[in-house]
């Protein structure tokens, strides 16, 4: 009986109303703030990845002609591409691990040729729980720049 009375009093009481309402609304604000932060971080990583792959592809094209180091996909060529990607991001360890990859294959488009496909795949750890972003396909930011050189 005391329990019921105590609940009734609690329900009628207007003490600490602000605190209670803040406690209810705070998660909304937090989700909003942290969500914006996560989106911004994602965009930054996305730009970095894009710039890195583009720099890597530019390196490959410049070093393809005249039997250059990237005339075929050698270890030296890959190393040069990764160095260019590190330089483009300003992060000397950007390509650490298997973040940066490059392939050297025949192009699929009607003009033929050889395509350098330079990819970077960077995982991000959001502040909000990963489950929040299940609507997004993945929490990896990846981009592939494809540049074509005609076969000589």
């Amino acid at each position, binding site marked *: 009986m005391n329990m019921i009375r105590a609940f009734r009093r609690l329900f009628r009481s207007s003490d600490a109303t602000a605190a209670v309402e803040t406690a209810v*609304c705070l998660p909304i604000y937090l989700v*909003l703030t942290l969500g914006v932060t996560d*989106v911004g971080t994602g*965009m930054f990583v996305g730009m970095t990845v894009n710039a890195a792959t583009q720099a890597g592809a530019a390196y490959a094209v410049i070093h393809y002609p005249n039997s250059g180091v990237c005339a075929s996909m050698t270890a030296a060529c890959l190393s040069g591409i990764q160095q260019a990607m590190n330089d483009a991001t300003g992060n000397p360890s950007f390509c650490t691990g298997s973040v940066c990859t490059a392939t050297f294959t025949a192009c699929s488009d009607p003009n033929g040729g050889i395509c350098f496909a330079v990819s970077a795949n960077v995982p991000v750890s959001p502040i909000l729980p990963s489950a929040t972003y299940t609507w997004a396909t993945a929490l990896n930011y990846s981009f592939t720049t494809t540049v074509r050189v005609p076969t000589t």
Partner: protein
Amino acid sequence: MHTLIRLRSCCAGAVAVTTAIVLPVLLGFVSLGTEVGHWYLAQRVMQGSADAAALSAASQWIADQNAGNTSSTTYQQVGVNYASYNGGFVIPTANVCLIPVSGADNCGTVRSLDARPIVCTSPPCVVVEITQNTAQWLTTNISMEPTSNQFGIQSIAAIAPILKERATVSMSQSTQTVTTNGADCILSLANATNSVTVEGGGDLVARCGVAIDGGLDQNPAIPVIGGITFNGSGAKAEVASLTIAGNYTESAECNTNAQHCYQWNATQSPPAGLGSTTVLPAADFLANTATADPYAATVAAMFQTGGIGVPPQGVASVTLNQAGSGYTPGTRIFQLQSTGNTTAPAKVVVTVNNAGHVTAIVGVFDPGVYTNVPGAAVAATDITNGTTNPGSGANFKLTEGCFTFPGITVGSVAWTPIPGRKYCSIFNHGQQHINFPTGNYYIAGGDSNCIGLCQSGNNAVMTSDVVGVTFFLTNGEGSGTHGVNSYAQVSIQSGTVNFCSPGTNCGTTCSNSTTTSCMLMIQNPAAPGGPPTTVKQYDNIVNGNGTNTLAGLVYLPKQTFNTVGTSSIGGCFGVIAYYVDIGGTPEFSNGCLPGNGIGSTTTTTTSFTPPVLYQ
């Protein structure tokens, strides 16, 4: 009513109400911030897409240029495709254009889309322009951003930028010119089937190529019929290659009646190449291949006014005007007083009587070099023995004209040829040996004994200094038989000649350092010409019973070069003539021709550096 009043005065739930009011605004600005961030990301992706497209398009353009498809526009298609492939979520449409090294570009659309000037400091450049109107994203996507008239904020759609990204790739062009020296030493210019003729048992031995142009480089409209004719089953050509401008087959040219064309063989004993049994390989028989006369313009300029082939004025003869007095008796050499228009005053050999008066003229010793031979009488000084001797008062009247080559003496005074003078002819006959000091010799028009450079007599010998001589064969003066219409020719009928042109050092190579380097006998291209006939009026003959040596170029663009009999000509020797008529066993080689020789090729290649992005 009571409820409404209580609600108004109730302070409970204030935060919830505030949140309810503020949240839409908050969400709007969060969306706006995200949207603006998205623009930057899109811009970055577009830039990457443009860069990749420009690199791909430039690579394609370079490949097209190298393959000769200079006007191909495949690069534009490649650029558009690869902009799309690299667009990520943006999927841009690209405009691709080219800034060429010279001439108009095709970047009108790019400029109309993006007013920024196109920077291409080192053309050619490929430019890729990608534009995106972000306002379209706002209007087409479900958006929570504030739109028009909400909260008094100007429409975001109005401030949504049109993103413009441009990539410019430079492919700095460079041009290399590679000149390959010619491998030919005989070029005949006549468009006749007997342009080159090998007579009887003649053997044309050439450690170099023989070219027959048939006038193709002078008049490309004519049907080219120039070829080689072998008169007699024993006639042979032992050559490194045979190049004919006309449409010939080796069998038609070389195998008529008998096999005539053999490959020059270095291992044959002297005269090298004689007796080769290797049939000229098909690879060394080049038909439908024109060979330009590489010296036509150079030599034509030499005989223009002021050119090096134009002879100076000189003294043809002198008459005694004043006998003077006080001279040493005997046969004396007098040098004429130097006037303003001479760089080398003439010298005459005179007879001085015992009274010290000049009594007779023996002959001109040096015709001198004049821009204008003076008409008034000219005083003279006795310079016999190289010193100034006593005597005064004698003077002479001069007649301008060519100088008759005196041989080895003028009267009793020993004489050697003087370079840089205008000769009527140079005729070495009899038993004498004449050596020509280094320099240019002008032979103008000829005279009754010899038209040009002649030699007869089995023991007659003409040689030159090792530093080299050049003979310019040109026309005379006046309307006489040997006047302006008479052009000097070469007629070495017997004896031996041993001439070297400047730069050859009488060896097998030539250094091109002066205008006349490697030029031995140069005939004025204005000379008349025609096919060789029995009269042989246009034949330039090099016969002789010794082993002749000619080092350098013999240039007879209108006339015939003829060598018959048992003569052999060695040395590093090349001929350009209208017709070439071979009877003996002359040996030709091409190491000492001017410039890059006969049949040289100049190829200009254009190359491009790998595409480089402008930052």
